[in-house]
């Protein structure tokens, strides 16, 4: 266990060095506050891949408001991040794309009971290539064998939402592929390989003109709620708390809303 933890720490340090945070702390330990109460040190934030644009903006804002603090962002699939955290990767804040992955961390005791806050939500939409080769008008069209539909596999958060959506709408989609991540689904649609795909509203918005988006009336039945929490053994608990406050506050909500997230 000791060796494994050390190895993870070394890898994490290497990635920190590569990330190249420019803000220098005022010396001494990485955590804490100065005499006048200003935050110092660095804060490591692990966040779901779909949060990349919003959290990059929020980190910029946080460093502006707290010049003594450097935010280290790590983005990956929620399940990947949970694996890394359980194996001992050092982080101060974790923001997940669904409650299931967050529950793993509370079960492991890495996050205190009642410490999590829901801060955003995401729903599924249909995307097709701009020229719509499959002639897709709505969810029922995806059940046709003539429409090549790509979805997320049920094992990952967006796929779990897809399963719920199908039963809520009473539609049985026969996908040509079940991808491991929502970005893979989007890629198959933007490249024109697939006629349609089910992705998050935020991914469709970020894809811009590369896709045509169709809202699904039943999407409200399959909402993914995004929880955030400071880690129980955060090296910099004060800054972790402040970052969570920024994300769940008014500014955070505005940034997330403009990226297409719904309120929690």
């Amino acid at each position: 266990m000791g060796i494994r933890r050390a190895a993870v720490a070394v890898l994490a340090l290497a990635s920190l060095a590569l990330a190249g945070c420019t803000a220098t702390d005022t010396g001494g330990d990485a955590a804490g506050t100065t005499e006048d109460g200003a935050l110092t040190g660095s804060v490591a934030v692990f966040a779901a891949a779909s949060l990349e644009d919003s959290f990059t903006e929020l980190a910029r804002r946080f460093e502006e408001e707290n010049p003594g603090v450097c935010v280290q962002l790590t983005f990956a699939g929620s399940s990947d991040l949970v694996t890394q955290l359980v194996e001992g990767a050092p982080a101060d804040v974790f923001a997940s794309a669904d409650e299931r992955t967050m529950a793993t961390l509370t079960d492991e005791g890495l996050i205190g009971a009642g410490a999590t806050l829901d801060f955003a939500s995401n729903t599924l939409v249909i995307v097709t290539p701009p020229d719509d080769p499959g002639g897709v008008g709505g969810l029922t069209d995806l059940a046709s064998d003539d429409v090549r539909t790509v979805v997320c596999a049920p094992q990952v958060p967006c796929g779990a939402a897809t399963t719920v959506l199908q039963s809520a709408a009473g539609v049985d989609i026969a996908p040509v592929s079940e991808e491991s991540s929502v970005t893979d689904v989007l890629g198959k649609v933007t490249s024109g390989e697939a006629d349609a795909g089910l992705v998050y509203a935020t991914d469709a918005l970020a894809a811009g003109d590369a896709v045509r988006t169709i809202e699904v009336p039943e999407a409200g039945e399959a909402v993914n709620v995004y929880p955030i929490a400071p880690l129980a053994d955060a090296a910099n608990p004060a800054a972790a708390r402040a970052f969570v406050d920024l994300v769940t506050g008014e500014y955070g909500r505005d940034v997330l809303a403009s990226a297409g997230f719904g309120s929690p």
Partner: protein
Amino acid sequence: MTAAPIRRRPPGPPRGRQGAAPLGVPGWVVALGAVGAAFVLLPLLAVVLRVNWAEFVPLVTSRSSLDALGLSLRTSLTATVLCVIVGVPMAVMLARTDFWGQRVLRSLVLLPLVLPPVVGGIALLYTFGRRGLLGQSFEALGVSIAFSTTAVVLAQTFVALPFLVLSLEGALRSVGTRFEAVGATLGARPTTVLRRITLPLVLPAVLSGAVLSFARALGEFGATLTFAGSLQGVTRTLPLEIYLQRESDPDAAVALSLVLVVVAVIVVAVAHRVGESSGRRLRGSGS
């Protein structure tokens, strides 16, 4: 310390283990070699230690695991056959003929060796995909490669082919053309020379190249994920199944990883056997 010129295989029939004279190896070479071996073996040991043995059998015999294993073996075997069919002529062409631009061609066809598999997948997508270079014509003929098992085989062949070409071309060059020249002066036609002299001489290299290709095809992940998609029993090979299971069931991912390691070890062991016995046969009957 001057290194003796290294020639793994002298001209003529391959030399066996018993032919090598015992050489003294410097201690520091042994030490560094041990570090290298530990670097390779420790991660494998770490996987074995993480296996949940109580659940091992149900995990690896689940419907989805068996589908993935079966698909992997089928597609890798098909890809290996394709590699031999086009790879042997490619190696002969590169080793035995001389034409303008040959050097450039050699570097280009070996490119999949160094290309990140994801890039290979994107390249295949733009070739055989629905809107790709050739894919559009296929689509017009009613043949669709995207999301089919064919796409998996294409991805595997693409990444595995250089392994066969590279090892066979090296063998052809070191075997030399002496026997072929004799055969030709005795009136044998090019096809006869190839069939009766060249190929039997390099058979061990063909076999070991084929095994390398099979192993590479078995482990193919990036190009398949990018190009073929992932659907149980159709395109979801064992590496893709491991990648997906890791999301929800790490125990299953570890168990399947061990299966893949065991299959790879069996393949390597069989290859070694086949290579040695065919080498011995050649020595017995040759010159």
